[in-house]
């Protein structure tokens, strides 16, 4: 595995995790604003189970697709890193209750 391929693998892994982070932030934010209604997959845990399921789905599907996609084409690791950190920050903000209160 050369450096470029190795960086592509790392980029796919990092971007998939950040897409998952963004997904739970977005779903939590929209659910608090009553704009989406996450499914209740495990009744004792309520809608949190649905939010986590959506996050896992986005993360794993993104990981699968990106790892295949990045195998075939060269990616700019710096750009992917910047996009990933932006998505993570947005995800964190989406799960931060004071942000919900600003918009809610």
């Amino acid at each position, binding site marked *: *595995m050369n*450096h470029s391929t*190795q*960086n592509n*693998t*790392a980029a796919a*892994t*990092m971007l*998939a*995790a*950040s897409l*998952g*982070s963004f997904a*739970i*932030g977005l779903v*939590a934010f929209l659910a608090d604003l009553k704009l989406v209604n996450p499914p209740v997959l*495990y009744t*004792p*845990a*309520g809608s*949190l*189970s649905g*939010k*986590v399921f959506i*996050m896992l789905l986005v*993360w794993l599907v993104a990981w699968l697709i990106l790892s295949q996609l990045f195998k075939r084409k060269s990616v700019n*690791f*710096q750009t992917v*890193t910047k996009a*990933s*950190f932006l998505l*993570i920050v947005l*995800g*964190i903000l*989406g*799960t*931060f*209750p*004071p942000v*919900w209160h600003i918009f809610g």
Partner: protein
Amino acid sequence: MLHGMAFTGFVIITFSAAAYCLWNLPLAYAAGEIHQNKQTKHLSWITWLMAIALWLSLLIALFIVFPQYRIAPPQGQTDLTHYPRYLLLKNPNTAWLHTFAMEAKEHMAWIAALILTAVASMASSSQHKKLDASVRSAMAWLLIISFGIVSFLGLLGVFVNKVAPIY
């Protein structure tokens, strides 16, 4: 106990070990292949253990702790000791522990688990190879972010547990 003290505690404590391994990678690269392989193997093991411990902590929280936290009291129940969510919301001085602390804990912790898993995967794919400085730097920042999230939420967990422990 398992959720907070054992698994999350383990994750917080081992952050320093992971950071040390990552920080020392360039030295290990310079010291030769044996040191390099040893150091990347350690980093991979530590980060995977951390990620697994955090996932276990979160699964325990989702399937055991959180359902107990949100049980609604029967009508007319005045003693809310065994109903933490309602105990916190009853008192305006402690309501923030639900509306802020628990709400953040419920959602934000999963981000730390995703990030740590990414770091572990990046570390294991680096075995027997030299990682670029840009990849090492990204891994270090991801570690710092997940450490920040886990520590912050751990602290909030201590506050919640002080006022409304789950029996």
